[in-house]
């Protein structure tokens, strides 16, 4: 294992970009988990990857293509709210099929496709870092604003509606925010690494968080530490980042499950 690359300036920017996203994705995951919609994260990620590939084939910016596709996914999710997991599964299948066909039939898409599916960080540039900084600046105040409404709509739905509050506008704002952040993460760190960071840290926080606020902090910390460890291991052993990140986070869950006897 060689750690020399860790100190190479070439990898500082991808590391910082991923670290910022690794702190945000678990926060989004906490609210998706609260609403039983964690599968939507995978649909957003698959749609973003397909959108990024389409953009690349059309000689456009992948970041924009991914973001537009995730916006479309958030819009469809809002329209098909009653279909729930069915809508997410259909979006996932559609995006996966379209993405794989593009990779198989277009030489330009092949390399980018592998980067998205394997979770390579080498394509991450200054635009991704800048977008991640903006995402922090937008997401934190928005989540602070949405927090009470999202919790109330889930825990006391009748109380919420009897107060004359319509939960749908804020749910749509959350869906758009989740779609944008997951799209940004997908084109930066790959489909499954983004999904793993949305899903696993909230799973740990749901077991060990002493309160909602502490759970949010714990999820973000687990996400950032897990991401950092995966980055070091993938670089040190010259392995693709996505699978290392996913395996590490799943391993964390298994170890914690055995130690605590439940999760």
């Amino acid at each position: 294992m060689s750690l020399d690359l860790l100190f190479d300036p070439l990898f500082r920017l991808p590391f910082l970009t991923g670290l910022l996203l690794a702190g945000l994705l678990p926060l989004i995951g906490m609210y998706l988990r609260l609403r039983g919609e964690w599968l939507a994260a995978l649909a957003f990620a698959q749609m973003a990857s397909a959108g990024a590939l389409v953009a690349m084939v059309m000689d456009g910016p992948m970041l924009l293509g991914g973001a537009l596709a995730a916006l479309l996914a958030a819009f469809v999710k809002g329209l098909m709210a009653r279909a729930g997991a069915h809508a997410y599964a259909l979006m996932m299948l559609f995006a996966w099929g379209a993405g794989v066909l593009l990779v198989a039939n277009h030489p330009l898409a092949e390399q980018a496709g592998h980067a998205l599916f394997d979770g390579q960080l080498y394509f991450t540039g200054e635009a991704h870092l800048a977008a991640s900084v903006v995402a922090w600046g937008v997401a934190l105040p928005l989540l602070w604003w949405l927090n009470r409404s999202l919790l109330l709509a889930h825990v006391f739905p009748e109380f919420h509606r009897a107060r004359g509050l319509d939960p749908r506008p804020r749910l749509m704002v959350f869906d758009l925010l989740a779609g944008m952040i997951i799209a940004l993460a997908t084109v930066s760190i790959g489909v499954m690494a983004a999904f793993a960071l949305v899903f696993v840290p909230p799973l740990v926080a749901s077991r060990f968080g002493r309160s909602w606020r502490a759970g949010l902090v714990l999820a973000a910390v687990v996400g950032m530490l897990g991401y950092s460890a995966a980055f070091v291991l993938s670089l040190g052993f010259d392995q693709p980042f996505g699978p290392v990140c996913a395996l590490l986070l799943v391993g964390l869950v298994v170890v914690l499950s055995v130690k605590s006897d439940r999760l």
Partner: protein
Amino acid sequence: MDEVLLRAEGLVAGYAAPVAGPLEFTLRRGEILGLAGPNGAGKSTLLKALWGGVNVFGGQVVKRPGVRISHQAQGFTDLRGIPLTGRELLALTGAPPEGLPPWLAERLGLRLDRLSGGQLQFLRLWACLMAPADIVLLDEPSNNLDRAGVDYLADWLGRAHAEQGIVIVSHDPALIERVCTRLVQVDGRSAQR
């Protein structure tokens, strides 16, 4: 005491079709009104109709402008695996913890999935009951409560509540008799004709 908060006039309510009503009553500030009737009469449906939670097929609900309604529903969301504490739950509705029974007050810092079913039910009830509101709608508030919980609830409701009007649906005749200042009979069959 004489200030009218809400008036149901020939109210017929349901979902795809009418299932309950017609219902007539007036709720004044300081009153605790009980809705009584057999299972399936549509008492919970009528409760929701008071704030527009179900379709109204006939009649109307007239509310005093600006009234705030708090509704404690009968069914509730599964909160297992959500790291929410009792204190955070009360903060969601704006209910103060002062006045909670001691056996619950000392557990407010715990996660909700560490509480017993009865403790959790009482906390949900308290969150809706004590939320800032002019009208409080309670749907089967004594469900899942143990004897101590029901007694505490009845004692609390039995004291003067001059600031609020409360409507209770309950299958527990002892609770209804103990706390309600007035009873309105609901007969679901009339809506189905």
